[in-house]
């Protein structure tokens, strides 16, 4: 069991989401940085989609009431255990009573606390993710509060972590070949033109060329962007249709909205583009007020990135088990 000692608002239990219910209006939810969630779980020997805590407001503190192991991945927020600073993106064993503390992130925005066995809240419609909008899943369908206690699940084959723990090479560094570095602090987000792209005429080119700023009206549901408005050449009244996270819609204001993990399941605004699946986690770590530019790509390019990311996660899973096994054999 763990106990939340201190938390800001909007911190929730998340897993890889609740696919399969968009057709009845249920958003998928799930971690905004699914890569960090998978890495954290892999370091512990959990199922890669085990439920974890998604922390997006700080400081955050929790106490472990029994000896176990945990990993903090995603944003680098100078985490400490029992007052001792730990490596970023690291898994460690803890004793009963120890306190884990997360401060303001230096890099990224969302940190994931994975614990051996996963957070064992009751699954709703096949997932433990919190749907804040629907008020179900996770911890009673709401964000975490001070004093909350959460049960931990069981895992059949947990890793036997070395005393100093185990960490992971920063995925942005390890995957530098498929993730272009930000240019002058501008995050490059790859997207594929969507259905109404051509309707924007000359404005479509400005969509790709200009630098957009992530507005303060941005959260797990969507990111509103600020910049020179883009408008369709003729007004359109669309019939409502299903959407997925990553869709870039343009409301009448002309400033695009990127739907994120808690995306509406349906929409009617014209869509200019769709962010590729493999770049969504980078958006999940982008800060409010930071700048981004869209880079137009093809499905083939998207598939290549996706393959590299899948390979990296698999490598983390296999190598962490191999390292822990080797250390045990040699000790």
């Amino acid at each position, binding site marked *: 069991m763990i106990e939340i000692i201190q938390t800001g608002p909007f911190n929730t239990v998340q897993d890889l989401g609740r696919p399969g219910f968009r057709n009845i209006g249920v958003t998928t939810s799930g971690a905004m940085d699914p890569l960090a969630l998978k890495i954290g779980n892999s370091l512990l020997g959990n199922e890669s989609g085990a439920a974890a805590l998604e922390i997006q407001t700080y400081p955050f503190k929790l106490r472990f009431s029994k000896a176990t192991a945990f990993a903090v991945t995603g944003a*680098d927020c*100078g985490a400490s255990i029992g007052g*001792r*600073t*730990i*490596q*970023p993106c*690291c898994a460690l064993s803890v004793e009963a009573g120890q306190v884990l503390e997360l401060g303001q992130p*230096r*890099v990224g925005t969302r940190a994931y606390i994975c614990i051996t066995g996963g957070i064992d809240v009751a699954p709703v419609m096949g997932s433990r993710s919190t749907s804040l909008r629907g008020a179900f899943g996770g911890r009673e369908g709401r964000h975490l509060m001070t004093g909350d206690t959460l049960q931990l699940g069981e895992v059949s084959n947990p890793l036997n972590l*070395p*005393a*100093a*723990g*185990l*960490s*992971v*090479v*920063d995925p942005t*560094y*390890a995957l530098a070949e498929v993730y272009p570095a930000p240019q002058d602090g501008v995050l490059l987000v790859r997207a594929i033109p969507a259905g109404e792209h051509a309707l924007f005429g000359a404005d479509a080119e400005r969509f790709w060329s200009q630098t957009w700023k992530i507005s303060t009206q941005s959260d797990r549901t969507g990111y509103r962007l600020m910049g020179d408005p883009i408008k369709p050449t003729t007004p359109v009244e669309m019939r409502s249709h299903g959407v997925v996270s990553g869709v870039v819609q343009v409301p009448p204001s002309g400033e695009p909205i990127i739907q994120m993990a808690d995306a509406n399941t349906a929409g009617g605004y014209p869509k200019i583009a769709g962010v590729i699946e493999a770049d969504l986690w980078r958006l999940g770590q982008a800060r409010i007020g930071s700048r981004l530019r869209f880079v137009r790509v093809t499905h083939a390019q998207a598939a290549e990135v996706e393959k590299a990311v899948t390979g*990296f996660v698999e*490598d*983390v899973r296999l*190598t*962490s088990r*191999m*390292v822990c096994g*080797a*250390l045990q054999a*040699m000790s």
Partner: protein
Amino acid sequence: MSKPDFSDPAIVERLTAALEAAGVDGIEITRPDQSLLIRLSGSANAAVRQLLARRTDAEGVLVVVKAPMAGVFWPTDLSRTSGPATSAASDMIGLLQVGPILLPVAAGPSQRLRRHLVETGTVVGFGDPIAEVEPEA
């Protein structure tokens, strides 16, 4: 008979040649005032790694930290730009990289790093000495 001085390169060289001739991978000699470790790699022009530790004062003994497994040695997490010096644990000696995994190597309780014995980015084998640590002041 006077004690040999293991810090003498000539002695290290003679010992190394003897080990090579005997087909021995390495030797570790420890005595109260000095210790020596020689390991030979498998190649023909055998590279020699040696380590000398000396008693520094009445209490403080230098301790050698060895690689817990094979990997690439990094003194800090170079994959991160966020100032690893401030985020790393205080008794961290460095990290062994195995593919995407970084295995932190710690100095141990009440010990601090004196110096690294391998270059950044060196491939080390199991048991290779990677650093000297000394008791915290």
